[in-house]
């Protein structure tokens, strides 16, 4: 899938770090204030809706329940299980996707064969492969790790292939004229030039694989936040369920922000 990369790219900061002056700066401040207001407005909406129905847990009750999870410790078992599956699976998926993506990006022939196959499966939700993993590994950490790895693999693979392919011809020509070895070309030209694009894939892969882990746990698991959600739902402990969803959102957002920051560092030096 190469469509709409322009729209999926986060808005880029101006190339040169200059503080805008005068009215421009006032406009930027207004924009930033309005952006900050969005979550506040969302919280206000949540506050208004929650008293109307018992299906929505009140914001403060939710936060209190989450705090209780950390203070009295009931959250840790699930959190640790999910986090370890996500971390291991993510590393596994990245370790597999990166070299394959690099090879595909560098070889037109391989790309011709594999690109249509990879792009063709883009619309297949990876979660339907979870029962296969369960059949192989049984319910537990291995199957979940595998699910995370598969979910992270594709976005990272596609981003790596695309960014390695886009490395400018003049840089590659420079490398050849300087008689750079394959390893030098990879380490000193291709990878640094492709790094920001690869980071986009890693960022998207992280969120997607994290959510895949939760959904997989919801389906079948021994432990994890997803399992706790389904247990809380079954026993109608809505505050607990909302608290876990909130935690998941916070973790995913923080992870996303950190990776986005890294990506911008790579892009602008």
């Amino acid at each position, binding site marked *: 899938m190469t469509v709409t990369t322009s729209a999926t790219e986060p808005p880029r900061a101006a190339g040169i770090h200059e503080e805008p002056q005068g009215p421009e700066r006032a406009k930027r401040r207004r924009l930033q204030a309005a952006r900050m207001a969005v979550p506040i407005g969302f919280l206000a909406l949540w506050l208004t809706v929650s008293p109307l129905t018992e299906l929505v847990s009140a914001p403060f009750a939710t936060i209190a329940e989450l705090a209780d999870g950390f203070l009295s410790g009931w959250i840790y078992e699930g959190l640790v299980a999910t986090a370890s599956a996500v971390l291991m699976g993510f590393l596994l998926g990245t370790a597999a996707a990166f070299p394959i993506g690099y090879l595909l990006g560098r070889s037109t022939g391989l790309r011709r064969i594999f690109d249509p196959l990879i792009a063709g499966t883009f619309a297949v*939700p990876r979660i339907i*492969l979870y029962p296969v993993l369960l059949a192989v590994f049984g319910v537990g950490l291995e199957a979940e790790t595998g699910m995370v790895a598969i979910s992270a693999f594709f976005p990272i693979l596609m981003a790596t292939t695309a960014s390695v392919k886009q490395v400018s011809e003049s840089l590659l020509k420079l490398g050849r004229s300087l008689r750079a070895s394959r390893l030098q070309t990879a380490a000193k030209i291709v990878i640094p030039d492709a790094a920001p694009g690869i980071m986009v894939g890693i960022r998207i892969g992280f969120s997607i694989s994290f959510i895949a882990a939760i959904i997989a746990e919801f389906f079948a698991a021994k432990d994890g936040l997803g399992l706790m959600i389904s247990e809380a*739902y079954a026993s109608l402990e809505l505050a607990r369920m909302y608290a876990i969803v909130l935690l998941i959102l916070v973790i995913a957002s923080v992870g996303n922000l950190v990776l986005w920051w890294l990506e911008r560092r790579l892009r602008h030096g």
Partner: protein
Amino acid sequence: MTTIGRSRVKSGPAWTHAAQAGLIVGLVALLETATQTGLISPMVLPPPSDIGVRLAEIVPTAAFAQDLTTTVSTVLIAFVVGAILGLALGIGFWRFPFVGAVFEPYLVSMYSMPTLVLYPILLAILGVGAAPIVVIAASMAMIPVALNTMVGLRAINPSLPKLAKSLNCTRVQLYWKILAPAATPLIVPGLVLGFIYAVIGTIAMEFILAPNGVGFRIGYFYRSFDIVDMYAYILVASIIAITANVLLNRLERRIRQDMQ
């Protein structure tokens, strides 16, 4: 150092197709051998031929037709809802650039962090059934449509609206005869991506939330240890998704070519 430069002979598509077909056939043959010889246990993977036979048996049944209808109609409803909302949002964000600038980063981050994660809340509010699935799939479909519409409209050459003004175009004419066609090359990929997300969202949510549908059957047969049926339905879900993807990408390419 005998060959220098990249004077590589370009190969035609015929060669690539053969390689792709060979790869797939080879993989299936490998799995067939591994399963027939007992290298892979039938509880992990039944022989592909058995899955194929089972698939042929399932397809004519009424139960299959019902599951397929459920899934396809959910995808279509989710897509239509998502596309309408997405187009409206995209146009609104373009007409009111400040509002667009405020919400753009949130829309972009919903790309990488799909609304899929909100399923427990929707489950709590809407209960088990078609409603939470449609909501999630529609919201996933909406994002690319909204973003691409906004970007497509923003990218329109500013001299085009000026031209319309100089020709005394009405507002309707401006939208239909100038803005819509000019933004189409970006709106169409947004719609295609939106449809694909509707497919992903529907099947994934059916897998965990639904009482019927193709995605549901995969989980259902897993739980009842009908491994052959489970694989047959994984195949069905994959074929639906791949077919939709390939057809839509072809359509998109056609439209883009016609526009140029």
